């Protein structure tokens, strides 16, 4: 085959040759998506959206480090962590679309919902800050999410269980990455210690919310589909204590930010979504 230009050569063989795809296939294509008959479909959908929204917004904040990280290896690492979370988001959104019976797909949930329809925790929202903020937030997020996903492996929803089992392997690497940075910086120079502690102090008011159950979480925990986030606290504290001790950092003594429960947002979410959604909303019929 011969082509007039490079672009044509790339597309001449069909769009699927693009590694990043154009017109993404359903990430759960061919997966048995039957919802067990006694599982509450509306709750399951809401829950998948919450867990997907956490991952999407965190992934977006991580992607902002591309071209801003202190070195190339770190940029690659953060992009990879963001990509893992984006993959988890795609599968969770697809599951939400089966469960709520609307058949909505990942683009509908990511690009065409308003801020108040997002169910993420506030932890993932604040602007990216400096590298100390990043390390503190990633440490808290990955420690919490790993504990959560591991407890979802026996979920009575087989698709959610399978998504969680894959995610555990990935988030274990994310948590180690953040923890190793926390130790390196916390137990590093005076300046690196000061800035990592400052990052921890800034993120800490949003920690309490991670363990405050939403009514959907309470109901699904009772029916063996979801996890009561309050049950994650002991493991979270034990891991954080271990990291902070090695890092010579102290656990901040600050009151929780008021209004903390899933679905209440900080002022940072709307501008974030405005950027994330702008292209899709300007070209609502486009596929890529």
């Amino acid at each position, binding site marked *: 085959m011969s082509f007039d230009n490079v672009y044509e050569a790339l597309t001449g063989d069909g769009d*699927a040759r693009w590694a990043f795809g154009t017109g993404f296939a359903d990430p759960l*294509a061919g*997966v048995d998506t039957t919802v067990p008959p006694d599982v509450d479909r509306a709750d399951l959908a809401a829950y998948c959206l919450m867990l997907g929204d956490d991952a999407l917004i965190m992934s977006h904040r991580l992607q902002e480090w591309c071209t801003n990280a202190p070195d190339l*290896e770190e940029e690659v690492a953060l992009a990879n962590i963001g*990509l893992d979370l984006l*993959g988890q988001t795609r599968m969770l959104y697809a599951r939400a679309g089966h469960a709520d019976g609307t058949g909505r797909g990942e683009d509908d949930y990511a690009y065409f919902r308003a801020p108040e329809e997002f169910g993420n925790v506030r932890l993932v929202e604040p602007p990216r800050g400096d590298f100390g903020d990043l390390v503190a937030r990633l440490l808290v997020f990955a420690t919490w999410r790993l504990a959560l996903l591991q407890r979802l492996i026996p979920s009575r929803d087989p698709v959610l269980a*399978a998504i969680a089992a*894959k995610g555990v392997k*990935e988030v274990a690497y994310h948590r180690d990455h953040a923890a190793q940075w926390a130790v390196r910086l916390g137990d590093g120079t005076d300046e690196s210690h000061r800035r990592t502690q400052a990052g921890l102090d800034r993120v800490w008011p949003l920690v309490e919310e991670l363990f405050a159950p939403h009514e959907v979480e309470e109901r699904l925990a009772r029916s063996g589909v979801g996890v009561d986030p309050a049950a994650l606290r002991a493991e979270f504290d034990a891991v954080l204590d271990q990291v902070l001790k090695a890092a010579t950092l102290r656990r901040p003594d600050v009151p929780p930010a008021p209004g903390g429960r899933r679905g209440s947002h900080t002022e940072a979410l709307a501008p974030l979504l405005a950027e994330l959604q702008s292209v899709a909303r300007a070209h609502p019929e486009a596929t890529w």
Partner: protein
Amino acid sequence: MVTATADARAVAETVTDPELPMLTLADLGVLRDVTAEDGRVVVTITPTYSGCPAMDAMRADLVRALRAAGHEEVEVRTVLHPPWSTDWISAAGRRRLAEAGIAPPGAAPRRGEGPIPLRLGPTVRAVRCPRCGSADTEETSAFGATACRALRRCRACLEPFEHVKEI
């Protein structure tokens, strides 16, 4: 129909990974099942990582190869459970990785019931340099050019190299 299945399987097993082209999807452990019945082929694959961007390319490559071999009707299914592990990479796949300068993975971590242990120090693994064979190597980053690869360097020959990290 056993013959049709065997034929379809043989074709599917020749399809290579888009990002690690020295490996077939079968070597990688991504190709989970191939069946053919009444002229219809069903191929089952599993993603390596949740965000693996190569899944669409893999589906398209499988369909293309099977159609070229005369299997008109092809369906590619995804299966998520059990989650992919580097332990599924075949012996031939490990050899081809090493020949291409990428250190193959060691045994994936065995995880029991309790909390997953935290690793605070640099991970010590017995990874041999694929260029000079020295075991004196160190990890420079757990994350590399694709989700499945880590970056390492050899302290003996001083060359950097990639390593398929264990999951």
